[in-house]
């Protein structure tokens, strides 16, 4: 991999006729027949929409609505924060009932902040549909802005904000790659999308090609997607697009991985820790491409996606066009409900997906597949046995790593060594665990090690901030102390140096002291022998007191 970094200056391959191979990979049973042959249906508008503020990689969006607000379809309800972030829109009209933590599709099963909308069933937009825009007159920045405002993220599963990935003008892009290689078993949403909406995909690809100014564009599909290929060719012929090519790649898992697909089509490797744009390539998922068409030409934000609901655990496996935020349970019901022998519910495919304990989670932008499996279909893995160092995992690793070494280091929490062995080049495809004769859950070790490293990085950042704040705190205390000392010094100086005024002050103090003394003496001057007075005497005294009092008052 290190070598490929130096191949940066190599002249770009002009034609991409010859296919290459990547290291390792597996031939897996497809299970695609379950859902591939049925047309996409619509899930309709559910009663409740749950829209997580974070459905992408990067910073969570910032909520713009309050409970009780009425929202229309397509309204911006949470805005993007920073560059790596994505906006969230109301996917149907209704009333915001709450902004609270709800279970979301995540392997942790934890809750995250969501906007909850009670739909009104009208599914109405605020204003009438605007006319289609002509993207050829737009600058790259303008197209990126449309994509950003539509809240589009990579719909293939990673969820990287699309406008950030395009970079728009920051890199010289030679090749735009539209990835429709659904290598994971069971998943057919991209296949169905092309079959039914090939024209949108072609238009989206042209918009993207225009935005990144790429000379070449390849739409990569899998070997067995013949119907989709036909649809693409028909749409291509109808659109008179130039520079777009459809290529079939062999069905080897994980040929749909970004790096693997680039290797297959161009023979070049993306540098370790680098991006495809480093070698002049941008790769976009085909679903994202269709969303770009909607965003730029039809000016519609990302409100829905196609989800494959499949597995032997659902009655009628099929692809369903789903509003973002629709509960998974609603989708399962749309697919005929669970069968009686359903065992587990997975989000994503069988290789890279994760099990979720509940189905009251919402469909997010990145959720491409709901897989309900039976016990026979996907039995629980047998207990792990010791590694026998057979090396099978190394043979199948598509990232050309040494999974066995990574396993030892991850298991012994030797994170530095794991990183030296390319832990972060692991794409978690699961090939190593699939072939492991000892049934070691290898990928889980890598995921554990990665998240430990990320957590440690976060903690280091937090302690750096704490150090800065503590230093600032100490500096502040020191400054206050110094300022006080200066003030005191100034006062003292003023007292000692300023002769005339100090005498006046001294006189005033002495006068005050004199007054206090007098008062004290007065208080002590109590009248004596006043016990047995005659009435006349008493009258006299009273009169004197009265006079005195009057005199005091007049003063």
């Amino acid at each position, binding site marked *: 991999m290190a070598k490929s970094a130096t191949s940066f200056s190599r002249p770009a391959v002009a034609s991409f006729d010859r296919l290459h191979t990547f290291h390792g990979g597996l031939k897996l049973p497809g299970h695609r027949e379950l859902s591939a042959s049925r047309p996409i249906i619509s899930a309709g508008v559910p009663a409740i929409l749950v829209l997580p503020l974070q459905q992408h990689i990067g910073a969570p969006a910032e909520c713009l609505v309050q409970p009780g607000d009425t929202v229309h379809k397509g309204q911006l309800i949470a805005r993007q924060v920073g560059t790596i972030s994505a906006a969230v829109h109301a996917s149907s009209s209704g009333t915001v009932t709450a902004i609270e933590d709800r279970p979301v599709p995540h392997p942790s099963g934890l809750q995250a902040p969501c906007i909850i909308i009670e739909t009104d069933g009208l599914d109405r937009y605020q204003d009438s549909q605007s006319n289609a825009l002509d993207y050829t007159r737009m600058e790259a920045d303008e197209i990126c802005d449309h994509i950003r405002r539509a809240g589009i993220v990579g719909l293939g599963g990673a969820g990287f904000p699309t406008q950030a990935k395009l970079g728009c003008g920051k890199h010289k892009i030679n090749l735009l790659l539209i990835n429709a290689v659904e290598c994971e078993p069971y998943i057919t949403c991209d296949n169905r999308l092309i079959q039914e909406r090939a024209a949108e995909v072609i238009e989206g690809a042209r918009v993207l090609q225009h935005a990144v100014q790429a000379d070449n564009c390849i739409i990569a599909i899998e070997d067995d997607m013949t119907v989709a290929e036909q649809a693409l060719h028909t749409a291509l012929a109808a659109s008179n697009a130039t520079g777009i090519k459809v290529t079939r790649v062999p069905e080897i898992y994980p040929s749909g991985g970004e790096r693997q697909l680039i290797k297959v089509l161009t023979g070049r490797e993306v540098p370790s820790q680098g991006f495809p744009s480093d070698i002049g390539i941008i790769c976009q998922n085909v679903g994202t491409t269709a969303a770009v068409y909607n965003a730029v030409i039809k000016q519609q934000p990302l409100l829905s996606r196609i989800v494959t609901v499949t597995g032997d655990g659902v009655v009628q496996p099929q692809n369903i066009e789903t509003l973002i935020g629709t509960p998974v349970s609603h989708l399962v019901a749309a697919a005929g409900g669970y069968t009686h022998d359903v065992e587990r519910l997975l989000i994503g495919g069988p290789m890279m997906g994760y099990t979720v304990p509940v189905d009251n989670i919402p469909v997010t932008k990145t959720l491409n597949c709901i897989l309900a499996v039976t016990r026979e279909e996907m039995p629980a893995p047998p207990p792990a046995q*010791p590694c026998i160092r057979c090396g099978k995992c190394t043979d199948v690793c598509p990232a050309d790593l040494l999974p066995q070494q990574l396993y030892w280091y991850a298991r012994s929490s030797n994170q530095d060594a794991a990183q030296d062995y390319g832990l972060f080049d692991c794409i978690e495809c699961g090939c190593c665990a699939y072939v492991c004769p000892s049934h*070691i859950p290898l990928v889980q070790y890598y995921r*554990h090690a990665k998240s430990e490293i990320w*957590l440690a990085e976060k903690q280091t950042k937090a302690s750096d901030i704490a150090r800065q704040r503590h230093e600032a705190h100490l500096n502040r205390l020191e400054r206050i102390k110094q300022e006080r000392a200066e003030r005191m010094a100034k006062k003292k100086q003023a007292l000692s140096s300023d002769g005339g005024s100090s005498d006046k002050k001294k006189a005033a103090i002495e006068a005050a002291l004199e007054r206090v003394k007098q008062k004290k003496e007065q208080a002590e001057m109590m009248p004596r022998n006043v016990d047995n007075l005659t009435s006349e005497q008493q009258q006299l005294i009273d009169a004197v007191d009265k006079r005195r009092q009057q005199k005091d008052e007049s003063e």
Partner: protein
Amino acid sequence: MLSAIIALGVLAALIGLVLGYSAIRFHVDSDPVVDQIDALLPQTQCGQCTYAGCRPYAEAMAAGEADINQCPPGGEATIQALADLLGLDPKPLNPEHGEHSEKTVVVIDEQVCIGCTLCIQACPVDAIVGAAKQMHTVVRNECTGCDLCIPPCPVECIHVVPLTPTIGNWVWPKPSEQVLGDVQHG
């Protein structure tokens, strides 16, 4: 003979000049050991090590006055890192200084707070905001969990709460280590 000596002498002088120049030109400031130690400490600033913060403790360690096992918030991981850095043997945490526990933060019960500002003065990272006779509150993201604000509070309205697990700080669980017939590997 003489020419050889002169030639070699000139050569030596030239090379000496080049070396001297590059020693100045390409000088790399090495991290002072105090900074390296300080970077390993958790920066809780709790003072459980008996020093007035992490940096003074780091200075004491660098001077050989303090042991490496006096930091309860850092726990075993910090002791191991310090031992690696300083070339010492790791040792268990000294119980005199407290026990290691998961990171916590404090919250102020705002109904009870009388606005005395004592906690604000105690906070080493200025993570409490408020003013005299006004309600105080803790900036959760900046709180290091040092608990120094708790003793000064006259109405005991500051409580320790564990950090709630979020998706952001969640860690994939490590697979169970109970492997059938496992043998010890290096």
